[in-house]
């Protein structure tokens, strides 16, 4: 979805950042968003406090809250997918496999 949405807007993002966690993907506040998402996912409370403060400092509190809401949504959707054995339709397999190999996530349980 990052690749699609950024291409549609004419400013292709570097999706490799999703896997590496390093860089801004070519997006405003991208590095701070990655750090915030990562701190939420890693259960590191000190890192989360730092990442939250940094995001508020550069983009404001409302921006941080909207980013937190998106993160909460994917704490939900990942569990829906993993908890119900959700799989992609066969018609999209080639595209998904290509992205999976590029990001090094083809071995995830939900990729099969």
């Amino acid at each position, binding site marked *: *979805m*990052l690749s*699609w*949405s*950024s291409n549609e*807007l004419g400013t292709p993002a570097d*999706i490799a*950042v*999703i*896997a590496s966690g390093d860089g801004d*993907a070519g*997006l405003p*506040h*991208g590095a701070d*968003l*990655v750090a*915030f*998402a*990562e701190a*939420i*996912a890693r*259960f590191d409370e000190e890192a*989360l*406090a730092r990442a*939250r403060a940094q995001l508020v400092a550069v*983009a*404001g*509190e*409302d*921006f941080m*809250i*909207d*980013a*937190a*809401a*998106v*993160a*909460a*949504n*994917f*704490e*939900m*959707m*990942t*569990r*829906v*997918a*993993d*908890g*119900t*054995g*959700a*799989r*992609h*339709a066969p018609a999209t397999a080639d595209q*998904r496999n290509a992205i999976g190999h590029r990001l090094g*996530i083809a071995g*995830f*349980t*939900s990729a099969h």
Partner: protein
Amino acid sequence: MPHVRADLRDAHAASLRHVASPGARLDAARRVQIAEVAIAAYLDPEPAPPWVRPYGDLALDVAHRLARHAGTITLEWYEQVITEGLHPLEWVEVVGVVVAAVPPVAFARAIGVPVPGLPAPVPGPPTGHEAAELAPATLNWVPVAAPADQTASVVQALSSLPDENANLWRLAAAQYMANEQMGDPRWTRGLLSRPQMELVAGRLSLIRECFF
């Protein structure tokens, strides 16, 4: 205290009320028990590893693993738990409860405020409210509302239990976007552009080892 927009605050409060209300197959007290396990697992600084069943109770052990080790759940484990006695629709209801309880907690933790408590369970028997017709799916392990596989797997995932499904998409609309907005790359969530939203979604999902 950060100011949280009203639609998001209301969606999270409604989701926790939903947890504490009778479900299709489980009464509210059992649902609250499942949610408490899920929240504890989500916040635990040193959780039990995925292969441990800390509770010796099928529904609670599914809630624990889903809340903290979702990426490790396999078809084989699903089938094992069903064989041991958890009905497939009870599994779906456990998933519905976990994904109703975790987002308000995850959001509160993310923005640095105390995590919300669960309401008291609403008395009464399970509602029996299930899809009129179920069908096996090829895009999900769990049964879904018939006809199966006419929509994306995550869209039909909880369709066997309409109340769980409705709560899921109410939350998604407030936290992320409604399904009808998915095809619009220019749609924004407040101050976040769509690519910025997808960057957060992608990084978190990858760390959770979820291909979606």
